[in-house]
């Protein structure tokens, strides 16, 4: 059985920010503790009043019609209906793509193409580096400063243990 966490002002504020000021939308577990806090602590009651005010402002703003007349709204709707009421494009029923889940249709890859191109470029660069040997100036410098050559560097890392024959 889950145990309710102790309710304090900080947690109460967090819950108000998470679920809003309507306690009926809260999960059942913390509601009783929240009600007790509201009745005993004036700071909690004040926090609830502020949250209610904020909720009322947002809800009022969202429910009110934005500027522009109702006729303009209707005209927009009519234009959309007219635009889509005529000849509709053919539906996609291709046998090769028919198996794709509909969830893929929700994504619009268009704005992502520069990122895709960058990713492909980096992958290509990594592939090229992987095919070439590591004759890079930095690596050569390290090897030289340790008094060996390129092959010496790999020996340091991969050489067998002289006694056991094991590789590190």
């Amino acid at each position, binding site marked *: 059985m889950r145990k309710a966490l102790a309710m304090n002002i900080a947690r109460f504020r*967090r819950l*108000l*920010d*998470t*679920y*809003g000021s309507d306690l009926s*939308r809260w999960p059942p577990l913390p509601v009783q503790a929240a009600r007790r806090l509201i009745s005993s602590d004036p700071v909690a009651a*004040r926090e609830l*009043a*502020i*949250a209610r*005010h*904020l*909720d009322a*402002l*947002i*809800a009022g*703003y*969202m*429910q*009110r*019609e*934005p*500027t*522009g007349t109702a006729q*303009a*709204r209707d005209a*927009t*709707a009519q*234009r*959309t*209906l007219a*635009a*889509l*009421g005529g000849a*509709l*494009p*053919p*539906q*996609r*029923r291709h046998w090769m*793509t*028919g198996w*794709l*889940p*509909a*969830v893929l*249709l*929700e*994504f*619009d890859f*268009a*704005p992502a193409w520069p990122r895709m191109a960058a990713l492909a470029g980096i992958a290509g660069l990594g592939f090229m580096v992987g095919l070439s040997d590591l004759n890079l100036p930095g690596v050569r410098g390290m090897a030289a400063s340790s008094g060996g050559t390129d092959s010496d560097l790999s020996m340091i890392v991969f050489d067998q243990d002289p006694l056991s024959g094991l590789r590190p």
Partner: protein
Amino acid sequence: MVEASDEDLMVAIARGEQPAFQILMRRYLPRALGLARRILGNDADAEEVVQEALLRLWVHAPRWRPAAAFRTWFYRVVVNLCLNRKRRAPFAALDDVEEPIDPGTDASVEFETRQTEGMLAAAIAGLPERQRAAIILTYHEGLPNAETATVLGTSVSGVETLLVRARRSLRKALGPVLEIK
């Protein structure tokens, strides 16, 4: 057919029946336009986005599977298209933010209300895209957090985090307006 469920209409649309598409379009057009208008902040973009969403609905209907409620899926398409459009034009002027009509009659009350709503509109417009979308889906559409999570393609706790941050930002922006007198 007018009273058919959204899912039944989608089955008919998948068979290429245009009357079913017309019914579903009329059913969702006002809400979709309102949602897109709130996210994008202007009518012209909202109109284009909703047309695009409805066209996708028609074109891809044969591949639609009822994994979630139709409303959730369609809102997800609309919200994704809106967010993509916002990413393409990230520097839209804040002056474009719509100001609601105030129904008040008294001049001083009207002025105060307009001022508060102007501040709120600017604060909502200044929120990061996904926080703004979460606020709009919660307050404009009245969706529960679980459905908002599906529309935004995230978890319920992800939506809760978005809402916490958004509400804190709005509270900070409105500041003294929210203080109880």
